[in-house]
């Protein structure tokens, strides 16, 4: 093995030290600008010039802050200390030891951007849990409610805020990158744009009323948004006879909007000589008291006009509505004096969330799916609350905010997940990991890949994708996996089937099979993974080359993967492996992929049996561990 080279760069604090003499004393070659096998550099990596870092790419390198290690004192003492440091480094460099794992601290600051119950409660709870909080308000008054909230309730909450909350009035969150423990937020303030770091970010915009579109051609003087009307006293004008309320006619409505329409209909129907007609497609009564309110309105005399397919037409100079009635099966018409259009609470989706760099994309945050996890989003440390989420104003918003605060507190304080070790020495800085990580963990900083402290779920997608094998999730590096497979396959009876099993869906199902005492083929070799996304094309082919007759990859259903795309990546890799085997004439039957959930042990057992059927010989029955 060649001796490591000493790359000597002049730096403050190293005056009077002779590199040639030190290299000799430490057993190093002095770098003269050629190709290097291994190197010791006397300055920290961040201070080194780019051309040197380029020359050292992929080599075992020891970076030293020699000036700090040498310190001051007598020249001969300094020389001795420098030589000793370099010799130790030379020993490490020639062994190819890699740079230590970067272990950062989670940033404890919390950014709450928005207003209303959710924003105030989240800020309050986070502050009580000991986090410095910045509350970025769109306006000036912390007591401004979000749309649909009770101003008195918001004012009470604003008056009870603890110390430790910093306010940033007239501010807007403009962009966000990073992940739990290490977010970078761009805030637009009256003083200009500022970029700040936070450990967690909560977004809860005030929202607004979105009005159902008016039927095309309707006289605009007739149509009013329902909530505008409600905020004024509900009284009719003299001479008014007919009021139409449209809810869910030209687009689907929510049960809350339907309930508001019913309440308005009841209030107006109570006025003398006024007839209210409610136009709708589905009676949305799936809320508390919904069915009772619907029946109450009907018995109060509100006409329930249920529309068949097709939109209502407008005739009579824009004053007459004509629709195909579903119940009567004929065309009906109405010339109302007022048309009320139902409204939904909505919030515009911030443009930075449409940015692909910050997962998750829109469809993963739809209210119903998000409900399964409180205020959380697929990016840990980033929470969406309130109107943007579809949470109803009131107690639900408080609960959601309190849950989010508790969650971020655990996230930033925990650090239970060991971070993937990034071997910056052999990293090519291609930024593949930054691109593929669904959790936003790797950050490119000071020419290093640094994992964000609190966001990693150890899914291993980065390790599957890294072309330099420079990133290794703890316990899941390619070398470790292959070694385990090699040993397992050496022992397993033939035919051997390797099952790459997702920890979320497949391992619990396997546990169920075990509990049921269900025998499975003795040649089945289960490789548990945190996420199926750890499986790449290479791992599948290597498993086959190590002696497996078949490989089955099993992961979560689409939309259920905690790492968003881990299951799809694994499915793609399985497909690639199948077509590769097919092209080589080896038969694509040896590999398979299964989407499943943790409560589908039967499906898993059936698929394993099918795989064995395809492999030709049935496996010898053995007992599951």
């Amino acid at each position, binding site marked *: 093995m060649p001796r490591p080279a000493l790359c000597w760069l002049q730096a403050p604090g190293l005056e009077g030290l002779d590199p040639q003499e030190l290299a000799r004393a430490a057993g190093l070659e002095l770098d003269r600008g050629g190709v290097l096998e291994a190197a010791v550099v006397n300055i920290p990596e961040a201070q080194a010039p780019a051309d040197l870092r380029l020359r050292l790419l992929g080599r075992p390198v020891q970076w030293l802050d020699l000036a700090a290690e040498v310190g001051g004192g007598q020249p001969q003492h300094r020389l001795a200390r420098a030589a000793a440091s370099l010799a130790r480094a030379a020993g490490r460099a020639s062994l190819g030891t890699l740079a230590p794992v970067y272990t950062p601290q989670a940033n404890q600051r919390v950014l709450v951007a928005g207003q209303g119950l959710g924003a105030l*409660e989240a800020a309050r709870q986070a502050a009580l849990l000991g986090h410095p909080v910045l509350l970025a308000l769109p306006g000036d008054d912390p007591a401004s409610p979000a749309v649909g909230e009770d101003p008195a309730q918001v004012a*009470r*909450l604003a008056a*009870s805020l603890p110390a430790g909350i910093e306010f940033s009035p007239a501010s807007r969150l403009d962009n966000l990158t990073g992940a739990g423990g290490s977010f970078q937020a761009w805030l637009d303030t009256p003083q200009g744009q500022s970029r700040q770091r936070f450990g967690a970010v909560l977004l809860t915009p005030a929202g607004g009323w979105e009005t159902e579109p008016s039927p095309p051609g309707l006289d605009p003087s007739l149509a009013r948004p329902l909530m505008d009307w409600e905020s004024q006293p509900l009284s009719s004008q003299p001479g008014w006879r007919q009021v139409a309320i449209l809810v869910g006619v030209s687009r*689907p*409505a*929510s*049960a809350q909007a339907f309930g508001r329409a019913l309440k308005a209909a009841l209030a107006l129907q109570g006025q003398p000589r006024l007839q209210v007609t409610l136009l709708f497609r*589905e*009676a*949305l*009564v*799936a*809320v*508390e*008291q*919904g*069915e*009772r309110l619907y*029946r109450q309105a009907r018995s109060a005399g509100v006409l329930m006009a249920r529309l068949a397919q097709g939109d209502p037409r407008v005739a009579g100079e824009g004053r007459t509505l004509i629709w195909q009635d*579903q119940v009567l*099966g004929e065309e009906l018409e109405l010339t109302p004096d007022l048309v009320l259009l139902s409204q939904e609470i909505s919030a515009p989706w911030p443009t930075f969330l449409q940015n692909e760099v910050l997962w998750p994309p829109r*469809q993963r945050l*739809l*209210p*119903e*799916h998000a*409900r*399964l996890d*409180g205020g959380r989003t697929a990016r840990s440390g980033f929470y969406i609350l309130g109107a943007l989420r*579809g949470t109803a104003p*009131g*107690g*639900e918003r*408080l*609960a*959601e905010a*309190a*849950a989010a605060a*508790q969650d971020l507190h*655990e996230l930033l304080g925990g650090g239970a997940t060991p971070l993937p070790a990034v071997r910056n020495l052999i990293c090519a800085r291609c930024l593949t990991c930054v691109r593929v990580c669904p959790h936003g963990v790797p950050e490119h900083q000071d020419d290093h890949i640094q994992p964000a402290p609190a966001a990693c779920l150890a899914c291993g997608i980065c390790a599957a994708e890294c072309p330099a094998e420079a990133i290794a999730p703890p316990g899941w590096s390619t070398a470790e996996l292959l070694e385990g497979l090699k040993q397992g396959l050496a022992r397993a009876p033939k035919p051997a089937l390797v099952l790459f099993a997702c920890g979320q*869906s497949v391992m*619990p199902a396997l546990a*169920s*099979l075990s*509990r*049921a005492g269900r025998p499975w083929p003795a040649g089945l070799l289960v490789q548990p993974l945190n996420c199926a996304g750890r499986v790449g094309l290479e791992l599948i082919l290597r498993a086959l080359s190590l002696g497996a007759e078949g490989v089955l990859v099993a992961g*979560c*259903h*689409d*939309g*259920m993967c905690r790492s968003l795309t881990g299951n799809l990546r694994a499915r793609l890799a399985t497909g690639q492996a199948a077509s590769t085997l097919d092209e080589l004439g080896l038969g694509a039957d040896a590999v398979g992929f299964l*989407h*499943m*959930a*943790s*409560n*589908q*042990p*039967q499906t898993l057992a059936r698929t394993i049996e099918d795989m064995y059927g395809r492999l030709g010989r049935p496996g010898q029955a053995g007992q599951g561990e």
Partner: protein
Amino acid sequence: MCPLSAQNTPVLIIGGGVAGLTAALELDRRGLPSLLVDKGPRLGGQARGFCCKALVSCARCGACRVGDLLEQVARRPGIQVLTQALPVAAQRQGPGWEVTLIPQPAPEGSAPALAPALAMERPLAQRLVVQAGAVILAVGHQVFDPARKSRLGHGRVPGVISAGQLEQALAQGGLPGQARRIAFIQCVGSRDQVLGRLYCSRVCCGFALRLARLARHLAPESAVTFFHMDVQDYGQAWRAELAEMRADLRFIRAIPGQVRRGQEGPVVAYAGEGGQPQEEEFDLVVLATGLEPPTAAPAFNEMFGLQPGPEGFLAPGAGVLVAGTAAGPRSIAESIEHAALAAAQAGLHLAAGQPAPRGEVAHA
């Protein structure tokens, strides 16, 4: 076996279904130990028997969460579990309650052959008095007995099953029999003036349509007809799913009045277009049964001095919180959220020594 006869716990959670399990976990996250009791032989509640309704994409039904919750509860030493334990008496004690539990006999019949989730069987051995700082009632709901609507033929006409029976069949492997013509009848026991059920059970449109889609997927040559009053809305993701279902399934806006025995399978009589009476034969008729208040609701009202809640479900009282479907019909996801809120309120109650205001997290 549990030799104790008296015990102290910060929070007593009655009912070990989705809501009870969630409440126990949420309390544990806040550092509060709890005692979780269930009158049945194992934890998991009704959702334990539900099937996964995904095709390739997750249908977000939440059924797989039951197993996940059980695994987590089993790992937390702060959560103590007792099964076959029935609360029979309660006495106010300071801000909390003293609750007497008696052992229940082991049920006849064995557990399902393939347990989808951890069993957590910890039977109570002898009468036990529990002193708790707060009580969370997570006693769940009762599924409407479809035999009570005898004209729909359940238990009388072969081929008529409840949605729960279909769930179990699908969870254990597949569609019952050679069902090719399948009908779903909605709102059985919900939105029914005659039965005095003036509420929507909220979850049936969602689970029935997802079951219908799954049945179509498992038997692609089958045809599914969906008899309904209204299709409820579950948010934006659902609307996209519903549009696909509308294209794939046959929707008829009518609730059939009768199901009778036919030549090959049950015959459904309903009012067709313009109110014309129509009859159609199916191989399988699935009744989407609604959610009723728990049968023990009056007993709990008396035991804890509670006011009856909306539609006969349970409402919170002094030192007593209600979580999940015990408080009204809700989905698995909503039960999880609701129970998390109840746990937060219980925590505040213990901190303040006074009950939290209803529907709102108290500000101590």
